[in-house]
């Protein structure tokens, strides 16, 4: 991937999704392993500062360095990338000794983002924690590809919708601020009753109606804003359709594009591997799960998505 393309900027993928335990870290480590196996240099960053465990999924018990060194000892990011035993994968561990993730200062956050973008590699994958805290969302927005990992479960879907709505609003806010329109969204939302606004899409439509300038800004944003969906822990053919349905809901009710990158079946071997600190993709390269992860990684890389048709899946068993 490096050959010839000298000024090729590396691609940043962020993996989030709102709910805890959906498999964000598992997916991050597996996608990373697949990319590396295809000859890419990959750096994984554990941005789940409150519950860092990406190192465990990669088979590292105690990372030599971590973001503590960055935040507390002023180490530079590139110096705290540790080897994790898998060729071409570097890890920035998130384990923190004392610092509370929500109290990271704004300046530190910017410095971290700057240094992430400066890492010399092919792919940077950022594993986010659960929840929709602003620090989490801002890290998510750093990415070229924003990936959500969700499950065919109502609570996971609820949190995911909440998360991506927040991401979208935060992005709009940032874009509008950059155009000197700092408070328009908050103002509209505060006065939503007066404007007859109930839904997210109404806010966007209202804003678009306020001026041509604002409409252009938002339309521009909508044209490029894209969420990639990974549906994890799938147990039946019918559940595979959930990803396609979520995609439709995003378009029709939230007003932006979502792509269904792929799905991963539920397999108890995943847990067994994690408990033994074995990287699943390396120990089970021929498993169905590994194949699904390879496929969805390539879809993400090439900007493709899957189309699933109900007639094939509705009654199919896995």
């Amino acid at each position: 991937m490096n050959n010839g393309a000298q000024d090729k900027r590396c691609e940043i993928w962020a993996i989030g999704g709102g709910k805890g335990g959906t498999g964000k870290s598992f997916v991050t480590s597996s996608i990373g392993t697949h990319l590396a196996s295809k000859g890419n240099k990959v750096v994984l960053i554990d941005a789940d500062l409150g519950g860092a465990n990406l190192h465990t999924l990669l088979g590292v018990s105690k990372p030599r360095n971590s973001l503590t060194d960055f935040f507390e000892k002023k180490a530079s990011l590139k110096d705290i990338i540790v080897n994790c035993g898998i060729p071409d994968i570097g890890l920035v561990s998130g384990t923190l000794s004392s610092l509370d993730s929500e109290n990271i200062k704004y300046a530190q956050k910017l410095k971290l983002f700057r240094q992430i973008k400066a890492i010399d590699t092919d792919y940077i994958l950022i594993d986010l924690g659960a929840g929709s805290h602003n620090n989490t969302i801002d890290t998510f927005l750093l990415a070229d590809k924003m990936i959500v990992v969700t499950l065919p479960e109502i609570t996971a879907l609820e949190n995911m919708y909440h998360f991506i709505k927040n991401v979208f609003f935060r992005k709009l806010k940032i874009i509008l601020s950059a155009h000197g329109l700092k408070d328009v969204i908050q103002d509209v939302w505060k006065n939503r009753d007066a404007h007859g606004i109930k839904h997210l899409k109404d806010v966007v439509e209202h804003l678009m109606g306020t001026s041509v300038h604002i409409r252009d800004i938002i339309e521009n944003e909508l044209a490029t804003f894209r969420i990639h969906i990974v549906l994890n822990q799938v147990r039946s053919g019918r559940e595979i359709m959930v990803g396609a349905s979520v995609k439709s809901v995003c378009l029709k009710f939230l007003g932006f594009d979502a792509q269904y990158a792929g799905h991963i079946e539920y397999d108890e071997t995943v847990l067994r591997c994690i408990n033994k600190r074995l990287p699943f993709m390396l120990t089970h390269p021929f498993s169905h799960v590994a194949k699904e992860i390879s496929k969805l990684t390539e879809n993400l890389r090439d900007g493709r998505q899957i189309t699933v048709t109900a007639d094939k899946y509705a009654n199919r068993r896995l």
Partner: protein
Amino acid sequence: MPIEDYKKYFEALELSPDSQLSEVRNSYLHLKSLYSNDSIVTSAIAYELSEEKRHDIVEQVEEAYTKLIDFFENKGSDPAGSKKPSFVVGEELKQYMSGMTSFSGELLREIREKLGVNLKDVAVFTKIRKQYFEDIEREKFSSLPAEVYLKGYIMEYARYLSLDPEKVANDYIGRYRSAMKDKGKQD
């Protein structure tokens, strides 16, 4: 069809305007089932999704599908090049068919054979798997897909045989439902 309408219909079905007939059908079946019924995907965002809006979507999807199917049939512009069925329905058979009110799988098979078409032709034309038509004719209800999909297939099949799609589907689905209910009781 005016180009704006054409675009609007494809948009309602969340497809690009170069999509094929089979994609139009698949998307229609999926969206109709998604917004006509409750599922975890819609319940999880119920606060953004009023009944009224859902109803509107189902209507838009229905309209888009009907219009696009008409368009494909008249223009024959499906890129895969499916042609009109190649048989001609004789006057006598037409009369006979228009008097029918009940459409069992057996009867559908009879009509098909009278028209001299085999299931492979139907499958190629509709881009629906042959297996489904076999099961429809044999009324193997337990192997058939969920009702919304089944209904779509029967309508396509009826349309292919120059029968009234709604009439055939309603009759067939009626029997399908009571059979499934009985089965439910047994289990």
